[in-house]
């Protein structure tokens, strides 16, 4: 029910209600962007029932993945070497 799908803003329409076309892996849909006034073309947003509920913070996303990958590499280093 609280499903949110990430997509990329491809175009904006600044009417009474801010909307835009958002691309979800090749599928384009009209999305209400009234709750993400800061989001611009090229930004990724999370969309729930036709509304973007946030702009995805790319910096935060990158930090998390880099942390995870460092953790994975460390685990590899700690693994005992096969005889």
């Amino acid at each position, binding site marked *: *029910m*609280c*499903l*949110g799908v*990430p997509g*990329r803003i491809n175009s904006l329409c600044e009417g009474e*209600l801010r909307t835009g076309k958002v691309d*979800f*892996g090749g599928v384009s849909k009209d999305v*209400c962007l*009234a*709750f*993400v*006034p800061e989001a611009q073309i090229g930004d*990724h947003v*999370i969309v*729930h*029932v*036709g*509304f973007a*509920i*946030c702009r*995805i*913070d*790319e910096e*935060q*996303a990158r*930090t*998390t*993945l880099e942390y*995870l*990958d460092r*953790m*994975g590499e460390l*685990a590899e280093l700690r693994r005992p070497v096969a005889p």
Partner: protein
Amino acid sequence: MKYVDEYREARRVRALAAAIHGETTRDWRIMEVCGGQTHAIVRFGLDQLLPRNLTLIHGPGCPVCVTPLELIDRALAIASRPEVTFCSFGDMLRVPGSTTDLLTVKSAGGDIRIVYSPLDALALARALPDREVVFFAVGFETTAPANAMAVVQAYREGVANFSVLVSHVTVPPALDAILSSGGNLVQGFLAAGHVCTVMGYEEYHHLAAKFHVPIVVTGFEPVDILEGVHFCVRQLEEGRAVVENQYARSVRPEGNATARSLIDEVFETVDRPWRGIGVIPGSGYRLRSRFQAHDAGLKFAVEKFVAVEPKECMSGSILQGQRTPHDCPAFGIRCTPESPLGATMVSSEGTCAAYYRYARFATGSSTCRVCEVGAAT
């Protein structure tokens, strides 16, 4: 797809599972709050990667499941009226009321439409000025801004034939109720990432402190969920109980201010019954009096329903994590998604429905579908 594929990579899932194994020394029980998380855990078999002494308890976070039977009956009565075009998200259509469901009303000639967004229902009301268009506004805080926007637009434009039947519930009071219950088993929470995207997580600091329980705001992909579990286990092992944010790419501490202010403008807090649990104080929304003209509950006065739940159903205990579907003799036999007895089987995000769909007919009967690893040892 960006922001999906990288959170499903097997190497990252394996690294997190290894870290959780390395740090879990005692028995712990963690509840994932959101039905979307439950669905992902069972779909990908993520619980099969965890140490045996770490149990994931599936929470009450499916708004379809917890919508009271009385309200479903009320929706059915409104949807059956000849002047009404009744709009709903698809997952409400098969939810049974006391005697029927929306799909059956539709097949008997009721004008029932599935919509993707509440704005689609509003557009329908503009296009059909001679019809009464009613939208079944079900959901948690995630969906509330969208439903609020539809109401505000209708109010501003004077679309008098548009109304909403509000069935909104909110998460923090439910967590308080679970932790306050005598039979509580939950020692840590994965909070619902999209609820917190809208509302932020400032309200949760109080719960973490009051009940000394770690709360980790968590996303929905396999890597998100395992990282949320990892953060939670680390806190439990170290004896800490604070709010952490695993889902920082989406969730800010204060949430989405624009969306929150619209919720405040349109809704006020009320006590709400949850199907299978009972009344939880301050856990629901209703329209403020200014928007009464768009309240379908007032517009279509129907007699008060007294709905009776099947006695055999134990969904109340399952919603609170005190039992699992395997404890229920009716599971998969007398209770299936086609013919559900109660709350947790009615929607695809309900615990029983997720177990049924992904063939969990016995404990530990699955493998992780991300990295094809069998039941954890």
